[in-house]
């Protein structure tokens, strides 16, 4: 089954890099939706069926952390797996976020690193 993916990042270039890495991963990717901040990400989640969300943390309007909290509070989206793709290297912040997400990819990443992280999450999904 093809995965519908949501990419949330305030940089359009970074979103394109992530989408490119997704396509290179060999995973069955269906529709890819994009959002420029957490608020837009939540709106996309309302409009589309999303199997996996790739979310940056530092964004204007609504941060990725707040978006993830809102997703977890909503019973419809509470179980959607989220992979954080961020420059954030603070262990304090990551320790707070880690229990709420399925994976973490640190920027800068190679397409292979992103693909491997997503494959790991998708593999877990496939085994559920």
């Amino acid at each position, binding site marked *: 089954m093809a995965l519908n993916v949501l990419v949330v990042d*305030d*940089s*359009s*270039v*970074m979103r*394109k*890099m992530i989408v*490119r890495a997704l396509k290179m991963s060999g995973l069955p990717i269906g529709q890819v939706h994009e959002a420029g901040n957490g608020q837009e990400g939540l709106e996309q989640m309302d409009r589309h069926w999303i199997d996996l969300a790739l979310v940056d943390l*530092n*964004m*204007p309007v609504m941060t990725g952390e707040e978006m993830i909290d809102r997703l977890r509070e909503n019973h419809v989206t509470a179980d959607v797996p989220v992979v954080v793709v*961020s*420059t*954030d*290297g*603070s*262990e*304090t*912040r990551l320790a707070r976020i880690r229990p709420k997400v399925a994976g973490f990819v640190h*920027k*800068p*990443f*190679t397409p292979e690193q992103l693909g491997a992280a997503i494959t790991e999450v998708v593999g877990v999904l496939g085994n559920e």
Partner: protein
Amino acid sequence: MSELERALYRAAVLTFEELAFALPMPEPAGRPLEGPTVRARVAFRGPFAGQVVVAVADGMLPVLAANMLGEEAPPPRPEQEDALGELANVVCGNVLPAVAGRERVFHLDAPAPLPPGSDPARPGERLLVSVVLPLDEGAARVSLFGDAECAAALGASG
């Protein structure tokens, strides 16, 4: 090269290599940037405040942006500037844990372009350290500015 310069250089090399496939050439650090440059800044706040500024030769930006997108042709100018901002963002996100410790939490502002000829230092800030990456496509300069607390915390007083 001081520890601070080394940390900034490492973060910059990692970022340019992995995001833009731009490999540093074996030339002495400190080579000046030649010709007009384009710059982007990412300001940070937390235990102390400052900003990372990335400057590249104007003619190099289209190549870097195309590399980042994996395309032959350069993207439109706004996307090129977005690409430079993202390079600054990633350098900033990587250098802070290296110099301030991984437990400290910083907030990074969205990347912003710097007008040509403007002084990047904001009130209360000064240049703490600057490194030059000699790349195949031309040189890039990465600078760390900070307030007095930042300078003291990073051992850049003076």
